[in-house]
């Protein structure tokens, strides 16, 4: 029942709609394990190569094959790349979800569907394009068993034709995607061309969406946050990585293995790094602590459940004062939660991870570029403060494709902090590990193997005095805890400063962090253009908070804390830190359904809370 012509939609009334150029979201609904990732990447790249800013977000199930998965591409001439709530074009390839997918669309959206699904019977206020995929794929792929894999490339061709993407860009993207597999490249190219030609000959363009060439992606790269983090750690001079696989952090270490094997083999053919898959997260972080104690730059990557397991060990590292870099690629909790969905739900539990008075330095990258640069800051801070540093990424940042300027080469040398060498010890005669010599709360350490009889100290998680000797004396304990606190206070002026936007004159402030940033910049423009509501914006990049954060809250009548969790965790953390009389000025906008936060939701909720 091949449909060769999708008849005009009687009541759609879209034919006269104004052209919408370089501003749309495209959702591809497929089944996971069907090879659609390659097709989606090719479509994304084709638009990117047309010079239009893009983002690609994979909304996938916690499953290997057979469950529904959606991929959303947003193209936007103004550079808004947060998830867009509304879908403008649906590519419906999954029979199981097709009806539901179509029902949720706003009137006027375009739908490309597999002809046998007969989706055009479901609604009459959408623009439908039926494509006989099976017939088209059979013509270009004689081998029946390969058809399933390249069928998805046909929709890339159809979409390219409808959106008026230059086919040369599609071809270039396919060649890049299958750079090492010539046969696969040719087969996929034929499939895309079949779709492109079919659409030209058989589909009448009735939707208003167009991609037109512009120049906003020149020199840019496309990469996911986990790969960017892996690169950042490699350039930070990381030497030991120990880990336990967990979604969505696994790809960080897996990519790092590839990068390190390529770029970190010494002239003797031996590795300048060790990467070890541990038996669980407890062992993974234990190894990090052992390695860092012995002088390596060591790290691990995990997600919420792993963070919970690392609680005991990170308390040890805090108290024994050992550097560690821990990436938390946050996913939805509590418990197993939604392992393949994004959140910022680990803020509070990580800030105070472990029993007793424990607190940690947290960094919040908002972009792939910051995954790269904050990786280096994380190692430097961990070494400088001799303490664990958590880099709080999330699934949206870690696993999705983002456009970025190329990453800058590190601008300062690797700094290992206060480590005493043999020569230092010869000069000084000895040292007291936990003595605050410089008034910043940070002691001097030695590493095992330092060839001096006074180099050794006894690292212990039990109570200790300045000389690292066992002590249960109240004064020793109190002094040590107060020094640790002083160290944390010192960190306030060393951690990355927040980023400020706005002229500082608005009455309303917005505070956000991490991936929420992309929704905020768009929401601020919506607020200004649609509601004449002006805002100032402070993007947090670290905990403990710097002075600017306090000033920002003090300066605004009310400040909205936007975050992707239920309980307003960052707002709570802020309330612990600011003057109590400022607490009533904070208002929470929380977003918890597991999909990346979008601007429209922020705008609507803020306006509602403003009582407008």
């Amino acid at each position, binding site marked *: 029942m091949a449909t060769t012509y999708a008849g005009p939609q009687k009541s759609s009334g879209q034919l006269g709609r104004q052209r919408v150029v370089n501003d749309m979201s495209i959702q591809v609904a497929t089944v996971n394990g069907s090879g659609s990732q390659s097709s989606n990447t090719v479509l994304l790249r084709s638009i990117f190569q047309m010079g239009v800013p893009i983002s690609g977000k994979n909304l996938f199930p916690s499953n290997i094959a057979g469950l529904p998965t959606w991929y959303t591409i947003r193209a936007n001439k103004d550079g808004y790349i947060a998830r867009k709530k509304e879908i403008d074009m649906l590519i419906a390839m999954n029979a199981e979800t097709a009806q539901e997918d179509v029902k949720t669309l706003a009137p006027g959206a375009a739908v490309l569907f597999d002809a046998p699904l007969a989706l055009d019977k479901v609604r009459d206020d959408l623009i439908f394009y039926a494509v006989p995929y099976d017939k088209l794929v059979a013509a270009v792929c004689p081998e029946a068993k390969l058809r399933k894999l390249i069928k998805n490339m046909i929709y890339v061709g159809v979409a390219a034709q409808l959106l008026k993407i230059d086919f040369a860009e599609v071809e270039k993207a396919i060649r890049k995607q299958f750079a090492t597999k010539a046969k696969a490249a040719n087969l996929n190219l034929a499939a895309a061309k079949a779709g492109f030609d079919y659409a030209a000959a058989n589909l009448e363009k009735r939707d208003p969406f167009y991609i037109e060439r512009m120049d906003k992606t020149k020199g840019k*790269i496309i990469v996911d946050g986990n790969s960017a983090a892996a690169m950042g750690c490699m350039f930070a001079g990381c030497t030991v990585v120990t880990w336990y696989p967990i979604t969505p952090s696994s790809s960080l270490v897996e990519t790092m293995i590839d990068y390190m094997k390529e770029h970190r083999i010494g002239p003797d053919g031996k590795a300048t790094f060790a990467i070890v898959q541990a038996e669980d997260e407890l062992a993974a972080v234990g190894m990090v602590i052992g390695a860092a104690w012995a002088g390596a730059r060591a790290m691990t990557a995990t997600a919420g459940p792993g963070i919970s397991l690392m609680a005991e060990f990170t308390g040890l590292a805090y108290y024994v004062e050992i550097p560690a870099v821990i990436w938390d690629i946050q996913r939805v909790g509590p418990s197993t939660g939604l392992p393949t969905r994004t959140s910022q739900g680990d803020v509070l539990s990580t800030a105070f991870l472990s029993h007793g008075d424990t607190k940690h330095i947290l960094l919040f990258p908002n972009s792939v570029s910051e995954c790269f640069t904050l990786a280096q800051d994380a190692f430097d801070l961990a070494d400088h403060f001799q303490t664990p540093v958590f880099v709080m990424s999330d699934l949206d940042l870690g696993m999705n494709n983002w456009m970025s300027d190329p990453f800058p080469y590190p601008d300062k040398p690797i700094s290992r902090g206060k480590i005493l060498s043999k020569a230092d010890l010869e000069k000084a005669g000895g040292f007291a590990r936990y003595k605050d010599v410089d008034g910043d709360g940070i002691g001097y350490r030695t590493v095992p193997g330092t060839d001096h009889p006074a180099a*050794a100290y006894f690292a212990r998680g039990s109570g200790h005095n300045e000389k690292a000797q066992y002590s249960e004396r109240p004064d020793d304990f109190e002094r040590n805890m107060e020094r640790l606190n002083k160290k944390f206070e010192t960190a306030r002026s060393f951690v990355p400063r927040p980023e400020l936007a706005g002229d500082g004159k608005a009455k309303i402030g917005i505070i956000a962090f991490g991936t929420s940033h992309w929704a905020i910049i768009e929401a601020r423009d919506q607020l200004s253009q649609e509601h004449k509501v002006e805002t100032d914006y402070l993007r947090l990049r670290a905990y403990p908070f710097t002075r600017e954060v306090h000033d920002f809250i003090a300066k605004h009548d009310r400040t909205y804390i936007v975050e992707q969790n239920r309980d307003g965790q960052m707002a709570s953390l802020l309330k612990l830190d600011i003057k109590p009389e400022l607490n009533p000025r904070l208002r929470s906008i929380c977003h918890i359904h597991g999909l990346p936060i979008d601007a429209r939701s922020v705008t609507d909720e803020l306006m509602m809370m403003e009582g407008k």
Partner: protein
Amino acid sequence: MGTTTTPTPPAPKTNRIGLQVVDYRGGKTTLCAGCGHNAISERIIDAMYEMGVKPERVAKFSGIGCSSKSPAYFMNRSHSFNSVHGRMPSVATGAMLANRDLLALGVTGDGDTVSIGAGQFVHLMRRNLPIIYVIEDNGCYGLTKGQFSATADLGSTLKSGVANDLPPIDTCALAISLGATFVGRSFSGDKRQLHTMLKAAIAHNGTVMLDVVSPCVTFNDHEGSTKSYKYVQEHGEELNEVSFVPAFEEINVDYDPGTTFEATMHDGSRLRLRKLEQEYDPTDKVQAVSRLMESHAKGEVLTGVFYINAKAPSFIDLLNVTDQPLATLPESMTRPSREVLARCMEELQ
């Protein structure tokens, strides 16, 4: 070498690197008088001294418990890490990844090893990390006042008379089946055997797992306990007689392969096991485990070296890391060049 000795008028006795035994001593013990653990600390001091190990090269590791306190009581010139309960193996593993030149010595207990730490113990053994892992095994939790541990024998009683009704975990059988390459059991009261085994352990490249029965004089040394001095003295059974010839000593006594097994260690030292049971082959895992099971059935405390494989690659060998410790690599080796970053960026365009 020897830069740190302080000359005193009557030339003191020194080892081959010019250090005195005092250079291997630690702080004053806070364990109970008569605790087996103190004797083990003494044997460690003697073995390290005699082998001429530089204290600065040694890294001591422990978990939590009485046994795990003991690294404070020997080798003050060595770095030490008293970590968390049952998870010392991961800390030691990380340290060895960072610095392959270290000589790792883990001192731990039966609770630390096969109760809370069973998971990490299993994976340490499996990796064959270069480490000497000493269990000071007293069958009970001393620091929390004498509860049974998982190495307590079936039927062994607490001071209160309560009998243990679960079978013990045999740490040696477990270690052998998992991949440790030097496994033995000794007794804190057997000075000669333990001392010799420790010296051989220092020469081994891979995991040495020594289960040392070490009576708890306060909570588990009574009639009815199978981890008491008296019980071990009455039921001790030597599988083989252990002797050791370090690489730096000339070999002047031949051995008879019919009655003695010899293993050449990583550094050229020789471990010799005079067979007290003719058929026993210390390179046969199945026989080793079987003999251990038999000892449980008989109620004997079997000691000696049960299994040795001096040729297996260690975990560090498998990783193919640089000869220079990762911890001390210069920035030029750990931060790739601008050109590498440019290439990475180009690939992503």
